[in-house]
């Protein structure tokens, strides 16, 4: 058991993956990267805009007493509903194609390297595996995977040393690719 680790329900693949994703930033911070939040910030902005739009419509409903004969209210409703669907659509496209499983983005201030880490779970494998794609400077890529049974101890804690080694090996390989 490593200090600062949470006990995870070993039967929930979702929890296992989320916990691994949360630990990515710890590793990359330890080797000198600082996290870049702009992908998640854009997603948050889009999501909260659509939440704001529905709150606005709720306010309008109360203000106009939901009177459909009031043309002003009627057109407000159509505009707000239409923009809600547009923003939700953009958000959906953004999550599907831009964010696309990216769980960590960081920049090394000294070397100027940019790193992107995307993760998925391969559920078809038994036991399920954690598949990770490290991309350096949008060019050099390394894909590898490890079963969760190896990453986690039986007690439900992440074996951080092993996790670190797993990431480190991949990272060094990507670095070597860059040098060649």
């Amino acid at each position, binding site marked *: 058991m490593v200090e600062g680790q949470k006990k995870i329900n070993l039967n929930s693949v979702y*929890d296992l993956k989320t916990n691994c994703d949360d630990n990515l930033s710890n590793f990359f911070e330890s080797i000198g990267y600082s*996290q870049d939040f702009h992908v998640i910030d854009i997603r948050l902005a889009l*999501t*909260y805009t659509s939440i704001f739009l529905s709150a606005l419509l709720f306010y309008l*409903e109360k203000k106009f007493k939901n009177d*459909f004969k009031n043309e002003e209210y009627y057109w407000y*409703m159509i505009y707000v509903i239409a923009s809600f669907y547009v923003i939700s659509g953009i958000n959906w496209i953004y999550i599907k194609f831009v964010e696309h499983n990216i769980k960590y983005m960081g920049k090394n201030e000294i070397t100027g390297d940019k790193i992107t880490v995307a993760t998925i779970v391969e559920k078809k494998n038994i036991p399920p595996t954690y598949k990770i794609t490290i991309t350096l400077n949008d060019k050099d890529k390394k894909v590898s995977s490890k079963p969760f049974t190896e990453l986690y101890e039986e007690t439900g804690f992440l074996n951080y040393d092993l996790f670190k080694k797993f990431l480190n090996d991949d990272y060094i390989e990507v670095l070597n690719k860059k040098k060649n």
Partner: protein
Amino acid sequence: MKTNVRCNLLQLSNILLAISSAFMFWKTLSVVANSPSPIVVVLSGSMEPAFQRGDILFLWNRDKYVDVGDIVVYNMDHRDIPIVHRVLREHKVIPTDEEIEKFNKKQGLKKDKNSNLKIPKNKKIKELKPSQKILTKGDNNPSDDLPLYGYKQMYIDRDNDLIGSVKGYIPLAGYVTILISENIYFKYILIGLICLSSLFSNE
């Protein structure tokens, strides 16, 4: 720390987005059906055997006129619950040209040479539109709805009082809402179950 704030915001947004999507779906349905309440639950037995208490009704409010025999839902200003009843009689009031002219004169509108209306800018004008007066009755009631209407009111107005006419229904699917509003024990049992399930879910 920064990650933590974003994580919490993202988690919160999941719940909020679920609520707002449901609300937006309801509003979309309202606008499409042109009805402030496009889905209603039957609360009384006055339309038996057509509808039982607890049936869910789907409404549509874009027809210009309703016909005799249609089942409509109307809402009177002095009553808080909408009523589902059948149209017994209807009467279309279509204004003649003379009446329209008289009405426009009252508003101070004049005609130009080509006999088109001169409409002053920045002024809201009323239009005398055709309307429909309706008398309704519950299938299971011995008499028509006159006693339900307001004092000295002999009919309901299609544009002002109707929420929509029934286009489809699911039998008994909305009975839970009746149980919640009428049975106090059921309400407490339901709240208890929700609390219990939240205790036993994740973490």
